């Protein structure tokens, strides 16, 4: 069975999405269990794949039995071996947590919701696992289209925000497609490994340069890298909480994965860092991204929107780290894909719980929340500490590598930006804590307290939340193992 894991990973959710869709017409109650089962199989296969990669090295799976570059093949190496479990597990946990929210928000449309949900996860997993540049585009479109559908179901402003996302996303995906076309026209191949093999003699070609630029801009659009981030905050804020807590942790991170894949596998570091030598400029762009994300987040008086700007800043972390051009920076970027997915999931699940109970997420709605929802807020504290970068949560360790990379690359601007954003994050989160903790203010002596009524979210929402929160600490503690056994093999040999 284990040799079929690469196929099962994607196929099981795809088939299940179809079954869920039919179940939506026949009996709605079956949708949720089928979706959970499908994503569990995915999660199981992805973890199995990771262990196979650890034992055997790179795995190639030929779809349709055609060997690449004729047919499409899956390549699973250390990079996507690490990202796959993250994607599938994050999606699974969020799915379990979303049950009650979905029933509350659109009771009549649970069938299509779970169909889209599972399809979206299929798309994201496919993007990560595929070794074919064009196949990646198709899966990107699946993930995007389903994402638009999921995000648009929300508040009144959600459709407009999503339509803007759709314009931007389409431009991004089309740019990527065009870049792949440029590579195809000069190499004749669509397979990533094959392109990388054919490219070196063409490194001076203008077409390859343009292909790289177009692909990068496309991917940056999709990941909301500043200044191409304008679509993200509104689209994520106004969406329903079950969707935003799937999409916010995963989509930007998967796109960062695509960027690293483009840089490492298709174009190779030799081209990116030696032939092109624009990495300083990109790192400075990342510095601006981080700073602007932090400042814009500071302006918001609304928890969910504040978090979306933090997502924008975190994208800057990863792009900057990847473009530092050294081992520590890239390690930090890859590690941050994992960590940021988990911590963003954690805080968005918290928002989901709050919305479920309080029906609002503006700062004014958060008063007295530590008394009302102590467990949710406890997890929020852990997530926030991880985003701030307090040891031993995982956020600290990726930041550690990123800063180390910045120092080694003499990019002190990036180091300062990281520290600045950490400090701003302290302000951001403690501002929320303060509202939840102090308000409504007690009298002067602080002894008389109105007994706050506990209104905690149901267990199906709390358990996934705590799994994530605890995993933040565990991943932090096992950072050494992750780096030594997985991440260091991601980086090509001979890379500083």
């Amino acid at each position, binding site marked *: 069975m284990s040799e079929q894991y690469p196929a099962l990973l994607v196929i099981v959710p795809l*088939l299940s999405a179809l079954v869920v869709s039919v179940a939506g017409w026949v009996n709605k109650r079956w949708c949720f269990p089928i979706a959970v089962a499908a994503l569990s199989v995915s999660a199981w296969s992805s973890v199995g794949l990771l262990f196979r990669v650890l034992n055997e090295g790179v795995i190639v799976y030929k779809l349709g039995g055609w060997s690449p570059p004729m047919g499409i093949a899956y390549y699973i190496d250390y990079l996507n071996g690490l990202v796959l479990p993250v994607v599938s597990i994050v999606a699974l946990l969020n799915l379990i947590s979303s049950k009650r929210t979905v029933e509350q928000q659109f009771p009549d449309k649970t069938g299509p919701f779970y169909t889209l949900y599972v399809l979206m996860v299929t798309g994201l997993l496919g993007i990560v696992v595929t070794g074919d540049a064009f196949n990646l585009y*198709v899966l990107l479109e699946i993930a995007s289209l389903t994402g638009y559908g999921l995000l648009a179901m929300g508040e009144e402003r959600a459709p407009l925000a999503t339509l803007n996302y759709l314009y931007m996303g389409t431009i991004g995906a089309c740019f990527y497609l065009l870049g792949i076309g440029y590579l195809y026209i000069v190499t004749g191949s669509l397979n990533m490994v094959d392109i990388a093999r054919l490219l070196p003699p063409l490194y001076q070609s203008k077409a390859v340069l343009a292909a790289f630029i177009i692909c990068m801009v496309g991917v940056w659009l999709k990941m909301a890298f500043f200044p191409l981030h304008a679509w993200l905050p509104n689209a994520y804020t106004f969406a329903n909480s079950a969707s935003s807590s799937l999409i916010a942790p995963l989509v930007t991170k998967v796109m960062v994965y695509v960027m690293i894949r483009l840089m490492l596998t298709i174009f190779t570091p030799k081209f990116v860092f030696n032939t092109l030598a624009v990495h300083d400029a990109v790192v400075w762009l990342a510095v601006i991204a981080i700073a602007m994300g932090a400042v814009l987040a500071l302006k918001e008086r609304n928890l969910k929107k504040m978090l979306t700007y933090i997502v924008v800043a975190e994208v800057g972390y990863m792009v900057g780290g990847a473009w530092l051009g050294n081992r520590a920076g890239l390690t930090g970027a890859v590690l941050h894909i994992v960590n940021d997915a988990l911590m963003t999931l954690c805080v968005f699940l918290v928002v989901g719980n709050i919305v479920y109970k309080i029906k609002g997420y503006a700062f004014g709605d958060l008063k007295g929340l530590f008394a009302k929802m102590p467990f949710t807020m406890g997890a929020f504290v852990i997530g926030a500490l991880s985003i701030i970068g307090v040891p031993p949560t995982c956020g600290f360790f990726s930041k550690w590598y990123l800063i180390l990379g910045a120092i080694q690359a003499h990019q002190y601007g990036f180091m300062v930006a990281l520290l600045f954003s950490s400090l701003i994050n302290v302000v951001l989160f403690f501002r929320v804590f303060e509202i939840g903790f102090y308000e409504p203010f007690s009298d002067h002596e602080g002894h008389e307290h109105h007994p706050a009524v506990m209104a905690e979210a149901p267990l199906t929402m709390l358990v996934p939340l705590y799994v994530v929160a605890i995993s933040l600490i565990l991943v932090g503690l096992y950072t050494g193992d992750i780096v030594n056994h997985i991440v260091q093999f991601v980086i090509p040999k001979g890379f500083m």
Partner: protein
Amino acid sequence: MKIIGLIITVVTGALLIYAAADFPAWSDPASPASTYLSPHFIEKTMEETSVPNIVTAVLADYRGFDTMFETTVIFSAGVVCFFLLRISRREEEEPETRYYRHVLTGVTIQLKEGYKMPPSADFERIDAVWTPPDLIIKTGCRILIPFVQLFALYVIAHGHHSPGGGFQGGVILGASVILLAISHDLRTAVRRMSEKLIGILCAVGVFIYAGTGALCLLLKQNFLDYSALAGVLHVDPITARSHGILIVEIGVGIAVLATMIWIYNNISSAGRYRQGL
């Protein structure tokens, strides 16, 4: 915004024009794209898949995995349109007055709120904005639709030997039903193909494709490796590939047919399944 747009456009255009300098000239037979992979497809397709239409072979076999997701894209677009637009019965406000039309005589009766129509085949429900379809268009389309559908089936079935295949055929099939909705009204079309049927057909179409792939997997081959079907179909592996392509093309046809109608129904009525936007 206009100036920003202009700047972005000019910069992007300049980059693309700059890059085009290194491209091979148009229709150059010696370009890498024409010399690297395509000769293999052109020369080996017949041997390997026994399908003369190379596009079909590449589409549904060499790159069949792409195509499966392509069908999924269509399917997800259908689901998204339904998810976003369809107004569920619980939310839908019934109009205060409803209209019923006697099919044979064309007499329309108006029902005030609270009154109900006894179930009867002689009356059909119509909307307030309903206008009688033009007789010539109505009759013309009625005659046309069967031929359109027949042609669609031909396009699907003959995809191996001539331009065509599941997508093209599916779209034509879908168009025939949409033609019915345009020439008559939406309610008529929905009576022929109910919403539930369409929704299920969409999924079934994609399921045929992905299920065929999964069947190969169960038969101890890689996913979508149709040669695994040789044992089931009692043919040699090459012919099995050809048959496999046909099966998935049928799946694609069904999925595209149903999704086209589904998207049309939802968008044209803004999810109310009534006449008029």
